[in-house]
């Protein structure tokens, strides 16, 4: 035979797995919590109230017992002892006996005058009332008794009075039963109300959940949960919809970017493959040197494009990992040590030594891309300025080219945007240069804008926050 404990352990084996891992749902938990809380409150409150009620009943009896005893004692002391004693209070409650020094009953109320002594009250203090339970020589289960010593005409006498508490106990007992019944009903109602209201609330939560789950399953970018009302759940719905919209926009952006990237990668590959096919099918028509140079140029552009794509992917919203004080004047000086196309002059105007926190490689790349872009469009000059003002480092790159139409000045920072005519220029960029600038500047908590220059060309202005402490440059 196994013990109970080990039997319990063995017995769980037949329970289904789902029941073993069962955790009550929110609905059951809330309903149970409300019920238990109410039950504790009711029980404590009820216990105190019933106790007070009972004490009050007992004290009434005690008072009547005591006053009866005193009235009798006074009467006995004043004159001859009547027998039976006329009761000053309602007959029967309390009962009174007068005993002589030998303990014999010499008088009492009409019901008790001829009865044997009601009680031996030895040991109780005179002038006090006490309650006794299950007294041996009284019919009551619970009684208040008192004894007073007095002197009569024939010597010392004891006046004893007894009041029954059974009626008080019975009343209290009934009150307990009624309270328990009422409390039970209240608890049931509270539990039910909690169950129903949580159920209603949770049904709306569940509806939201299943709607979102459907949207998740179908991957419907236009999927939204219905919005109604103004309560917390309605606000949750609004927030969910905002999240879905943001995700849909982001997914759409990624999709478009992937399609654009595919297109942009296919174009140079198509060029290379056409060049290779030319060499395969019409080898006599090509000049080895020219053909190789063309192939190398196509290869170089493809390489650049892939580099830019990887750079963009690695950036994607992240702040630069490296944040070291970097002097933009040095970046500008380095950035202008490069070959410019014939006829175009790359010059530095103001170059204040302003220091920003960031990744020097990315900062250099920002400048390189802007200069690349400017050199592609400049007629004769590209001018760089770096100044510090109002807590910002301002880097500007100005060309004297055809300028950028106002409508395109925002769009030009999008990925793969080439304004009309740009691609016809030799050495057209990957279409990612300015997008990279935009993302890198944003990663450095700065802004980049395109405006017009005095000469009718374009000016790109990069604003970056200065390094917090003005450090002397290294």
């Amino acid at each position, binding site marked *: 035979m196994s013990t109970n404990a080990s039997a319990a352990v063995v017995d769980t084996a037949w329970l289904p797995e789902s029941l073993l891992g069962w955790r009550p749902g929110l609905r059951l938990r809330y309903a149970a919590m409300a019920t238990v809380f109410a039950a504790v409150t009711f029980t404590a409150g009820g216990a105190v109230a019933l106790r007070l009620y009972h004490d009050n009943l007992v004290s009434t009896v005690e008072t009547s017992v005591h006053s009866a005893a005193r009235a009798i004692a006074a009467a006995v002391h004043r004159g001859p002892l009547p027998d039976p004693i006329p009761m000053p209070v309602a007959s029967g409650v309390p009962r009174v006996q007068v005993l002589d020094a030998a303990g014999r009953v010499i008088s009492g109320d009409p019901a008790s005058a001829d009865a044997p002594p009601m009680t031996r009250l030895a040991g109780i203090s005179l002038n006090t009332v006490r309650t006794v339970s299950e007294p041996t020589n009284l019919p009551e289960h619970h009684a208040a008794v008192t004894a007073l010593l007095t002197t009569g005409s024939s010597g010392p006498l004891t006046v004893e009075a007894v009041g029954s508490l059974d009626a008080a106990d019975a009343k209290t007992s009934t009150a307990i039963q009624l309270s328990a019944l009422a409390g039970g009903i209240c608890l049931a109602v509270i539990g039910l109300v909690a169950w129903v209201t949580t159920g209603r609330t949770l049904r709306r939560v569940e509806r939201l959940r299943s709607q979102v789950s459907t949207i998740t399953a179908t991957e419907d970018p236009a999927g939204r949960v219905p919005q109604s009302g103004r309560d917390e759940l309605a606000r949750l719905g609004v927030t969910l919809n905002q999240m879905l919209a943001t995700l849909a926009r982001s997914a759409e952006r990624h999709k478009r970017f992937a399609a654009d990237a595919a297109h942009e990668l296919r174009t140079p590959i198509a060029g290379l493959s*056409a060049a290779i096919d030319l060499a395969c099918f019409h080898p006599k028509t090509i000049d080895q040197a020219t053909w190789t140079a063309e192939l190398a140029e*196509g290869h170089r552009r493809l390489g650049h494009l892939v580099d830019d794509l990887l750079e963009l992917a690695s950036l994607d919203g992240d702040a630069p990992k490296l944040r070291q004080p970097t002097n933009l004047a040095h970046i500008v000086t380095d950035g202008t040590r490069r070959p410019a196309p014939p006829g175009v002059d790359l010059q530095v105007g103001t170059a204040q030594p302003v220091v920003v926190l960031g990744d020097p490689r990315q900062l250099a790349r920002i400048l390189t891309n802007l200069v690349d872009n400017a050199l592609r469009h400049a007629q004769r000059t590209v001018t760089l300025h770096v100044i510090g003002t109002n807590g910002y480092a301002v880097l500007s790159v100005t060309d004297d080219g055809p300028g950028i139409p106002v409508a395109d000045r925002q769009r030009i920072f999008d990925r793969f945007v080439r304004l009309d005519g740009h691609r016809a220029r030799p050495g057209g960029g990957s279409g990612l240069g300015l997008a990279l600038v935009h993302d890198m500047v944003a990663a450095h908590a700065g802004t980049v804008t395109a405006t017009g220059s005095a000469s009718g060309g374009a000016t790109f202005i990069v604003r970056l926050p200065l390094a917090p402490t003005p450090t002397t440059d290294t």
Partner: protein
Amino acid sequence: MEKVRILLVEDDELLAASLGRSLRAEGYAVDIAGDGLLGLYLAGENDYDAVILDVLLPGMNGYRLCSGLRARGQQVPVLMLTAKGGVYDQEEGLDTGADDYLVKPVRYPVLLAHLRALLRRGPARLPPVLVHGRVVMDPGRHRCLSGDDEVDLTPREFALLRYLLSYPGVTHTSRELLDHVWGEHDSGDINVVQVYVRALRRKLDPPGRESVIETIRGVGYRLADVN
């Protein structure tokens, strides 16, 4: 014999140069345009036997160039050669009037074969948008206009009108219309043709004007002549 003349509109220099040289080596006369506006201009100036057209072009994109050609009534065969390989890109390309669509990068022999097939077929018989008098039908967008009013046609009405618009001036018997519009499996009561012609007239003809669809007694139906 005169050379077959081809216009190549392509802004990628390496592709344009290489493909141009390859095609010349095949014996074609090739003109190259590096942007859309130049392409449209050249196509208007010269009589080309085929156009090879990129889509993303500076100046004017390939779709607009193609519909520009068709709007001018030029039915020169157009082969779109583009890196845009999406379903809707191809659909749009062909619906704007291109005769063939190839996604870059394409192997040279395949491109040549498509070009040869295009040249065998010659200019398209029908433009992408069918126009007859005040009736304008764009099958690609499944739209039909009578004058400036959009006409809401059932698929069968649409098919019947498209068939009629495809053969202006030709008289069709009811049996022929039943066979071509309803098809073999669905050709039942020949009177259904009359019912549909009546429905088309009700939707297309302004009150008090002559009908777009003429009844030729004892023969069948044809599009009314446009004055």
